[in-house]
């Protein structure tokens, strides 16, 4: 049901989550559930938001939850956003920590030790 917005792969030791399309109030909860189900045992998580064309506060809430969860477990996480774009704008407006955001997937993966 959420396949059109979310898919998964691995990059080194990190679990890679690909998000695409518009993430808003209508689908954020479902997407969040799928991501959590896939990443509970992950050692590191990379969330690729470069293909996200819209992200609202519900999407922010979802990312915030996932980041908090991984932080609690001491597992590293990076959110990969483009140089510009809707996702970057929303996350910056919400003042997400700069250390969470990355612009390059490869570099982020390397940072995580993948």
């Amino acid at each position, binding site marked *: 049901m959420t396949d059109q917005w979310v898919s998964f792969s691995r990059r080194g030791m990190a679990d890679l989550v690909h998000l695409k399309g*518009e993430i*808003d*109030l*209508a689908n954020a909860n479902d997407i969040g559930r799928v991501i959590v189900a896939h990443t509970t045992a992950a050692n590191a998580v990379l969330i690729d938001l470069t293909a996200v064309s*819209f992200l*609202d*506060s*519900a999407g*922010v*809430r979802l990312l915030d939850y996932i980041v908090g969860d991984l932080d609690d477990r001491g597992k590293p996480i990076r959110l990969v956003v483009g140089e*510009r*774009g*809707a996702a970057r*704008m*929303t996350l910056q*407006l*919400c003042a997400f920590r700069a250390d969470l955001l990355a612009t390059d997937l490869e570099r982020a993966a390397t940072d995580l030790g993948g």
Partner: protein
Amino acid sequence: MSESGVPDVTSELRLPWDDDPEDLYEHAPCGYLTTLPDGTIVRVNETFLTWTGYSRADLIGHRRFRDLLTPGDQIYHETHYAPLLMMQGEVHEIALEVVGADRRRLPTLVNSVLERGPTGAPRIIRTMVFNATERRGYERELLAARRAAESSEQRVRVLQQIVADLAAAPTEAEVAEAVLRAPEPAFQAASSSIYLIDPERDLLVAVASTDPTTGNWDDMPCSSTRAVAEVARRGDLHVIGTLAEAEAHFPDLAESMRRSERRSVVLLPLTTGPADEQGGVAVLGVLAFSFRDERTLTDGELRVIRLLGQQAGQALDRARLYDDARRREERSEFLARTTRALDEEHRLLQRARRLVERVVPEIADWALVRLQVGPAGLVEHHGGPAPDPARLGARTAEAIETAAPVFAIDGDGLGCTVLPLIVRGRVLGTLAVRMAPDRRGAEAERLFLVDLADRVALACENARLYEQERAIARTLQRSLLAADVPGADPRFVVETHYQAAAQDMEVGGDWYDAFLITANKLAVVVGDVVGRGIEAATTMGQLRSAIRALASAENGPARLLEGLDRFCDRVDSARMSTVVYAEVDLLSSEVTYACAGHLPPLLHEPAGSPQYLLDARSAPIGSRAGDRRRVEHRMRLAAGSRLLLYTDGLIERRTRPIDRGFEILAREYARLRDAPLKGLTAGLADTLVGRDHSDDVCLLCLTLGTEERLERSIGADPVQIALLRADMRGWLAGHGVDTECLNAVLLACSEAVANSIEHGYAHDPFGVVDVAATISAGTVEIRVSDRGRWRGPGNDVARGRGLQLIYESMDDVAFDRAGDGTMVIMRRHRGEPS
């Protein structure tokens, strides 16, 4: 005599007929008794004493006449004789048995006269007794003869009834039943049983018995040494009169006779003709009947018994032929009905389902069809209980490997026949059936099953091919329809929808297309090819390509249709297709359209109600009878106009006139005026057609130009926010708003709408959120209003974040809670025009 000197005895002499009365009395040729009214003997003659062996002293004064009679006659004497005598004064020829001194019985006929005294009171009774021994013997013979005649008649009647029953018995079972009933009434047999020969299995089968506790009740091979089998082989009547005889010849029979306390047994072969006719006489079974006592059968009875054997044999023979014919008829009827029923379904799964539902319960109690199609195969079963899967699997594998049926055999533990479904030498799958074990006709049954498998295989193969063609046609159609519709041009938006028929119909020939002829000229088209299936899909693809090839900056719609008419000369399957085609000049907002036999487009301009465009009409493509003078019509459209092209499936219903369909479409289209364009065509199809529709539906909606003011109303459903965003994105882009500003406005607008839905309408799923957007050279203004309950920012972190995003992304934000709801007014300054 005296003259001869012989001593003269004249004085003594009497004439021979001159009887001495006393002597006459004593020695008369009949007995005389004189009794008192109470029956006490007072006088008796010598004749009576001689007959009965009594002395005079035994009787006179000691015995009553009644006392000399048998007990039965004593009663008769009291109830009939004596009353009759008292009333009438005399009785005649009463048959009574007198018991002699030696207890021997003497049959007599008796006449009595009652003598009365002067006062009329009874005085004495005089009784004359005739010896009726001879007469009684004669009577007995008569009686025996009559009884014999009666019994013969009874036998004949029973047999006549049996013969009549046999003639009326249409099935083997009923013949057996009728034969079985004969021996008891006809020969007073104690019980009877019938055995029938099954030639295919070489078995003698115990079919029925009036007392199944007698005899050995197992089926036996025809070669068995048991008496029944022996008689069946010999083919002639056997009467086993005594247990000793049975022991001498048929030990098994003797054993069961002892057990069931029988003394005589008759074993009668049921033959198709008289036993003396050699050759051509077949034994079809054996009728066995038995007696509790030793029974000797007369020649007449034996003749009748033989006749019964022949009659029954012939009836059996006839019934078997009749059974076979009827079974064949039933089976062929079943095959015909099944074939017809399968033909009614086109899809493979449904055919398989229908097959097992026909087979069970009509010919089997469980059936399973397994087809080797697709990655997972297809399995349908019906009835139960399901047999052991491992054994069935082994048998199925065998049937597939040998490509030959594996028939059920008695006692194989599975009872299932597995038939390979073979088409053109390839095993398509298997049909497994479990049928009730059949007593007879196994060979015919096998032929029937093979025939059934052939038909099923063909039906399944046809359905598979249909399925394949359907999938190809569907894929072809999808690939053609999914081809990229031009977008990302702020001057227009095209929204399309295709909905396939729900009722398992073949792919239809409906299609839509939109493409840019030049940078500033857009073509939109909706058409409908005659027919269904892969051919229609192919033709549709060809027409679509032809239109793309024919469209040019110079031609225009009418010339294009003329080109399509010529195209039909080469592609005849395109003939009578209908097409609506429009070209839009994106610079001047002029639309030129033409309708070739197609339903008129529906135009909704920003002001006013929807209008059907009824100009520029001509006949379908390639029509021979219709008006093929192709015409076109040109008109200018206001910015924000929506033009709807569609196929007949959207409005045509068998249950209503087409005018009504047009009305409903126009009304619904008007109602959706403020709905976001994205999802509009799907929404229309959903409202007008619903899920259960028998035809394909194809829609294309073109929105031209950019509205000065965007006004949308959406339901309180989060899913609708994305639809609104799509419209607003197009509208903002159409007004040349730069990306950063555009993203910021979209975010703020989405948050404001989400806020209304999540909080204002938390308890009202039917709430409506209105959005209005205006734009000027320097500012974008968005107003989002609801009529729900206002709740301040409060402590809700998520809600706080949404509001924060609105504030962050817009320059001015104001909340107006003056009315019965909340309005958010948001402004953002536009950046440098890009």
